[in-house]
């Protein structure tokens, strides 16, 4: 067991991916920052000085305190407090956790939908392909954000504000998953069409394997690397979509804020000079999305040699 | 003085992990009205040589040494502005694929007029008249209609006629034609070639014909160069080389021509294949495929020796020449 993992590790260390990663400063920095943010989000309860969900810890007297380096700052609240007197650093850590959870969850969701529909469209072809791709076209021409807003509005209207707020995380994962599956489905379909022509598929058919087995066991593994590349960028897109929905009031409630709803609630106080409540979570959001996009760009260049012309 | 003289031209491609030598110490010359053939397999550096003359090699290629003298002026040391006055004006080019050469979104007329206006101060109307005359010269049916058509509305043969007309537009001294007929239908290849040759002859234009078609070169050129892995390995009068090739590679090429063999005989094939730029072996680049290979061949590139009017770079040939020179002294 150990030997297998060691040899796999060795193989990874000798791979082109690792080699080019070591030489790309932007990729390294992005990766380090990304891992740091993910760890900070995952272990938010350990790092955060206060629990923003715990109403007992909040004192309204502390509201709108500026960050510690400004006049009037309090060492107890390094990044200041928000309008309800919650410690901003803690809310940001917890908000990052929510944003990341929705980002990854939505990509898993759209990955499942996209892979299933993409495989079906590509492998079965004909009418199934036409219908699925037509839906994908219409959705994409509407833009994923628009679809997410519409689906979000419909969900919110049918579940009611209160219930929507309680299960908002799952709702958002589903909404963004539904809105963004066409991207992945198209990629999968294109790879399937290319793979389908190859001889090993014919061989599998001749050997009498069923459609499901050929699709999932034979074709799917060969389409994984483009899916992987596009998923990376899709995490960034999902995080932005979540932030946009929350900003519009169609996402996370203020009691359980994500980065987007923090920005939204802070925006109401920007005119009174409390810029930190909205701009500091905004900065965290931008850095998070930026490093994911940079990693995605790097991965795409690595996996697609055609683009790599210098 | 020759019209065009290329001396020790070195061209390299800057790639990750060092430079690749695309052309090594290329030297040749072209006289006024002369027809020169440049033969070799694809990848031998023929096109690179053609583009380097007008300094048109694409990134990451660059000229690392040597000079290109046109009427005694060094083209490789000229500024872009000075070079532009030569390009298309004194030295015109014909590219391989007429489908890719003409800009798909501009009319034939626009692409002809702009070439004239780039070099002469004339009105659009006057330029159109010249363009029309040249189109008539290349015997395009209803030439006035063609001026307002887009390239995709013309057939492949017609497009290459347009390109020949553009090449002749400014009455150049030299036309460099890079495989001008390869992309065309076999049926019209001969027609286009005959047209190009006739027009060059008529206006006394020197033609540098780049091709892998040894048969064509033997029919239409006066002198020829044989290239292998970025080097000229043999050059001289076409007739002499075709009748009595010196370099083993050239011999192989000629033996591989179908019409040279007797009917029913299997075509000759040179064993192996030309190495890619990144894998050129030391010494003579042909040595791994050569039947006369010696240790010397594996270590250093042979110098040129003269055999008749032919320059050839081969140790075997120089040995033979030495033996011939010594022979009369031995016999009493």
């Amino acid at each position, binding site marked *: 067991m150990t030997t297998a993992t060691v040899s796999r590790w060795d193989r990874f260390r000798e791979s082109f991916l690792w080699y080019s990663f070591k030489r790309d400063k932007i990729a390294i920095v992005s990766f380090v920052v990304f891992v740091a943010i993910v760890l900070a989000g995952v272990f938010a309860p350990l790092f955060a000085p206060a629990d923003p969900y715990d109403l007992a810890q909040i004192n309204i007297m502390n509201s709108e305190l500026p960050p510690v380096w400004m006049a009037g700052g309090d060492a107890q609240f390094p990044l200041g407090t928000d309008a309800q007197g919650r410690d901003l650093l803690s809310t940001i850590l917890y908000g990052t956790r929510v944003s990341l959870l929705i980002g990854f969850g939505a990509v898993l969701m759209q990955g499942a939908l996209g892979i299933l529909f993409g495989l079906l469209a590509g492998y079965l072809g004909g009418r199934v392909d036409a219908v699925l791709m037509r839906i994908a076209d219409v959705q994409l021409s509407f833009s994923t954000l628009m679809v997410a807003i519409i689906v979000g509005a419909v969900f919110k209207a049918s579940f009611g504000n209160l219930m929507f707020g309680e299960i908002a995380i799952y709702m958002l994962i589903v909404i963004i998953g539904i809105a963004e599956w066409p991207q992945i489905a198209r990629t999968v379909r294109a790879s399937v069409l290319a793979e389908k022509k190859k001889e090993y598929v014919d061989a599998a058919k001749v050997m009498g394997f069923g459609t499901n087995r050929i699709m999932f066991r034979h074709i799917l593994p060969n389409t994984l690397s483009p899916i992987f590349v596009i998923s990376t960028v899709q995490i960034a897109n999902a995080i932005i979509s979540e932030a946009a929905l929350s900003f519009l009031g169609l996402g996370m409630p203020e009691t359980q804020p994500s980065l987007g709803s923090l920005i939204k609630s802070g925006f109401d106080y920007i005119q009174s000079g409390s810029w930190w409540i909205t701009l500091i979570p905004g900065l965290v959001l931008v850095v998070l999305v930026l490093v994911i996009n940079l990693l995605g760009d790097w991965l795409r260049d690595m996996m697609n040699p055609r683009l790599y012309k210098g | 003085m020759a019209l065009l003289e290329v001396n020790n031209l070195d061209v390299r491609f800057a790639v990750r992990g060092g430079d690749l030598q695309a052309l090594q110490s290329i030297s040749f010359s072209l006289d006024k009205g002369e027809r020169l053939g440049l033969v070799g397999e694809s990848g031998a550096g023929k096109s690179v040589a053609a583009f380097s003359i007008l300094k*048109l090699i694409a990134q990451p290629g660059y000229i690392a040494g040597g000079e290109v003298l046109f009427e005694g002026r060094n083209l490789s040391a000229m500024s872009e502005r000075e070079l532009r006055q030569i390009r298309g004006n004194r030295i015109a080019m014909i590219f391989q694929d007429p489908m890719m050469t003409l800009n798909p979104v501009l009319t034939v007329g626009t692409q002809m007029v702009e070439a004239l206006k780039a070099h002469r101060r004339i009105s659009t109307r006057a330029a159109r008249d010249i363009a029309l005359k040249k189109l008539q010269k290349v015997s395009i049916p209803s030439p006035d209609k063609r001026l307002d058509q887009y390239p995709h509305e013309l057939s492949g043969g017609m497009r290459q006629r347009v390109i020949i007309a553009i090449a002749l537009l400014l009455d150049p001294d030299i036309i460099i034609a890079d495989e001008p007929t390869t992309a065309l239908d076999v049926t019209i290849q001969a027609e286009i070639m005959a047209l190009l040759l006739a027009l060059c002859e008529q206006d006394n234009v020197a033609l540098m014909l780049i091709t892998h078609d040894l048969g064509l070169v033997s029919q239409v050129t006066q002198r020829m160069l044989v290239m292998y892995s970025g080097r000229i390995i043999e050059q001289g009068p076409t007739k002499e080389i075709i009748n009595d090739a010196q370099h083993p590679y050239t011999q192989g090429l000629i033996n591989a021509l179908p019409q040279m063999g007797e009917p029913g005989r299997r075509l000759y094939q040179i064993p192996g294949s030309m190495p890619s730029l990144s894998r050129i072996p030391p010494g003579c680049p042909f040595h791994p495929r050569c039947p006369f290979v010696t240790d010397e061949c594996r270590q250093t590139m042979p110098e040129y020796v003269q055999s008749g009017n032919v320059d050839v770079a081969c140790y075997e040939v120089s040995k033979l020449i030495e033996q011939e020179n010594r022979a009369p002294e031995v016999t009493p």
Partner: protein
Amino acid sequence: MLAFLVQRISQALLVMFVISLISFSIQDGLGDPLQQMVGQSVSEAEREKIREELGLNDSFVVQYLRFAGQAVQGDLGTSYFYGKPTLEVIFEHLPATLELVIGASLIIGFLSVPIGVYAAIRPRAWLSKFFMGISTVGISIPVFLTAIVLIQLFSIGVTVNWFPPETGWGSWLNGLFSTEGGMPSYGRGDGLVHLFGTWHSGFFSSDGLRHLTLPAISLASIMLPLFIRLIRAEMMEVLQSDYIRYAQAKGLAPHRIHFLHALKNTMLPVITVGGVQLGIMVAYTILTETVFQWPGVGLMFLEAITRSDIPLIVSYLMVVGLIFVVTNTVVDLVYGLVNPTVKLTGKKA
């Protein structure tokens, strides 16, 4: 040409059909017009009678056909909140959104082409790398955040006192990094000029233009990096092609090669993608209008969602869907007209 037109239009009709079906399902599933029309006091028998009269007991298909028939005649229902036909409400708000989109498109057009072309021609210049870096960062900034930062900088203003203010250079540097603010960040201002119908324009007064500035920049900021990247990538590919090298071999001047030979070929794919992106911009108007309280259809839509104004939501979807379909069809047709290699026979050559 005719075949191409027929094909595109029938495709557009099909998409409109799907959109109307979805919209109607939303209305059917969510809206209970009875709740809005009559209060709680009406008896169940009474309700049933009204239901029957309104045709609410008919099958889904019959109800959809009635809905579609009315929609074709321009009747999309009455807004609960405004108490007016929804189309009227939408047309009152549409000019504001259109002006925002026009303003943003002008900014995108004037900036993306020169920057994209420059970055393609001189990929190694530090300025190109700077622009590409900025556009990578730009893609990662959500549009509402750009808007908030713009408001902080140019509407509220920032006073910097990082440097000692008592020294001359200190106060100069403080002034350099401080911004004055004062740009309007709310609504369209009072300087609107009535053009025709419901169209009141902000383009013809300095106050109207000042109000448009920050929202238009915000909306442009999300698309600008995409267009710069797209133009650069297409242009770099075109510059590799044989006909560009041939143009050089003809001795043409670089500006003619870059701005005629290369740019014309670059813009063809950019037009197609650009048309689609223009439609996508409508989604971002919702965010931009929310931040700036810009009284356009985006803000109207969001308010309709919070007010559960179902007929207005549905009408918005139908109108926006129609705008998407029309722009996409027009873009296809324009592409066919501009690109000589596409013969308008319904197939791309």
